[in-house]
């Protein structure tokens, strides 16, 4: 799960990292009020959406006067912000963060994430702050310093200290930079571990001219599997930031990802669903979605899945691929028939069904007028061919 920058910064602060003073607001009037509360300093007005690259898209503006603040907030609030991470449809901006502009001496990068290969959290930092870490990793991987953390011990003082020295935080004129930096690195790691984050990223981590070290930006993602034990994090969810169809699928217990193609896919199992997309592509078409109906696909869920697929106007054909194991083919067949009745499916549907209760499933579907294949390749070829 993703959260907004202002929420990430509040969490970072809770764990002991310093952040610029500021407040998130919904309206131009509140924006001006927030600016006044801050003591009328130079501020950044920052669009709050779940995507990076906001600056280039016009979602971040500096303002020094009431007029500036008003006009910046007015232009950003309500805009549809397009960045390289939003896709061409962009995102509606409903909140801006009004934040004291800070005088930065040097920008660093710091993040905690999961190191899958080592099986532990990893604290990463670099002197090349403000740049995307992937870019640094590609160009100059040596510049990224890494500390593998023990999941039970958390970050140990010597680990934060060593990293701070390696970053050169002891070389600033202001002696407190080292200590502040150590505190911030420690905060990142603690936040990651105590809140079951999957990513805590501060970029830039800014050393200010006055010796403070602040998280000038902040991004925190969470492990969806652990949200059950963090209701305070679940409460930060902004559903408006999610693809509506994906949100609907999630609440129905389906795993769905919208894509740009024309063949809607319904499959049981994530690996087979990916493979099915790949096969569609292999035979010359583009999948419209990833959809896993799950390991215990009951008829209602199957019908819901078809409803979600059909709601995508790009879908010109549907390919259903079921390998019954725990999932019973007859149950799936009932779901397909029910969906046809309720929704009136108008695009061609190609079905491949095999495994548990295959015969019964086939009978139900054929009675309802569907053709059912057994071979994956043949069915896929046919699913693609109907489009032409």
């Amino acid at each position: 799960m993703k959260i907004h920058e202002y929420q990430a910064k509040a969490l970072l602060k809770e764990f002991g990292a310093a952040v610029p003073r500021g407040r998130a607001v919904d309206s131009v009037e509140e924006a001006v009020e927030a600016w006044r509360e801050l003591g009328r300093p130079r501020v950044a007005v920052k669009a709050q959406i779940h995507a990076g690259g906001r600056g280039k898209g016009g979602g971040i503006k500096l303002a020094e006067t009431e007029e500036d603040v008003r006009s910046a907030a007015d232009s950003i609030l309500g805009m549809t912000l397009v960045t390289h991470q939003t896709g061409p449809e962009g995102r509606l901006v409903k909140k801006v963060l009004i934040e004291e502009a800070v005088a930065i001496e040097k920008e660093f990068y710091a993040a905690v994430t999961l190191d899958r290969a080592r099986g532990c959290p990893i604290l990463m930092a670099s002197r090349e702050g403000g740049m995307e870490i992937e870019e640094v990793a590609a160009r100059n991987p040596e510049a990224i310093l890494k500390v593998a953390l023990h999941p039970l011990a958390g970050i140990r003082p010597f680990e934060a200290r060593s990293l701070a020295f390696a970053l050169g935080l002891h070389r600033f004129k202001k002696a407190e930079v080292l200590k502040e930096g150590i505190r911030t690195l420690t905060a990142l790691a603690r936040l990651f571990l105590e809140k079951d984050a999957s990513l805590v990223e501060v970029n830039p981590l800014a050393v200010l001219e006055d010796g403070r070290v602040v998280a000038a930006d902040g991004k925190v993602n969470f492990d969806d599997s652990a949200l059950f034990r963090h209701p305070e994090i679940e409460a930060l969810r902004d559903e408006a930031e999610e693809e509506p169809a994906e949100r609907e699928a999630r609440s129905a217990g389906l795993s769905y990802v919208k894509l740009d193609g024309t063949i809607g896919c319904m499959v049981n199992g994530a690996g087979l669903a990916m493979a099915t997309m790949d096969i569609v592509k292999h035979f010359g078409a583009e999948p419209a979605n990833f959809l896993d109906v799950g390991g215990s696909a009951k008829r209602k869920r199957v019908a819901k899945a078809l409803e979600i697929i059909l709601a995508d106007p790009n879908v010109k054909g549907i390919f259903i691929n079921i390998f019954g194991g725990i999932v019973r083919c007859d149950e799936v067949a009932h779901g397909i028939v029910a969906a046809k009745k309720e929704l009136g499916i108008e695009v061609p549907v190609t079905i491949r069904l095999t495994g548990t209760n295959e015969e019964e499933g086939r009978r139900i579907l054929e009675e309802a007028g569907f053709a059912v294949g057994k071979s994956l390749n043949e069915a896929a070829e046919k699913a693609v061919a109907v489009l032409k």
Partner: protein
Amino acid sequence: MSILVGKETRLVVQGMTGREGGFHAERMIEYGTNVVAGVTPGKGGTTHLDRPIFDTVEEAVREEGANTSVIYVPAAFAADAVMEAAAAGISLVICITEGIPALDMMKVHALLPAGVRVIGPNCPGVITPREKAKVGIMPGHIHAPGRVGVISRSGTLTYEVVWALTESGLGQTTAVGIGGDPLPGTRFVDALELFRNDEETEAVVMIGEIGGTDEEAAAELVAGGYPKPVVGFIAGRTAPPGKRMGHAGAIIAGGKGTAAEKIEALNKAGIPVADLPGEIPRLIRDRIGG
């Protein structure tokens, strides 16, 4: 002989009196698996499917000599169940549960006593058809005793491949579902090591997918010298970056973990990668004949 599960398996089912655990315990018994006990805290002293139920795994080990455990416990409690099994002296813990927090599994790995192997979580389990030993949730009837070892991050996609192997007459020695989580207890490299000296296994199929670098690690291991042919399949060529494709581990993050990278790594290591699952039997026959 077989790897992981076989005639020597004495299985305890953690969560046996639950809906999932009970359903699959019955299927496992039908298939021929030696299920010796179940564990459900608070139901000790009862029986289920004619097997004794205990409050703790420790009792199942002490009373029934359980040496393998399979876990159908809800995600919030599953990591603890793995640790309980390990502490009780179980040497192979197969965790079916999906949705265990990543941090829980990191802690489990940090605390696991030496000599305990975990398979999964979020996996279909392990099956050795020749010895009628099935531990997990896969449909037994699609398997057949044979010559090929299967290692897979997926569930139904494994069935697809297994079925193709069965239909082609190649069959399987053991099929190992290592699971779709980002931190599997057993990885491709570990499973490859297990198949290395298994006499019956003439070739190995690796079914990978996007996310992580475990396929690349396996390619490196094979490139360093592996005594039998390995054939691969990678799901997710068309998956977009930054989106989780169902499995918690199936995500292209920071531009890394794409199918293209993995296929390239496997090919470099001399491992042919099938474009379609159905091609796998042919790729194997090209290498081991028959």
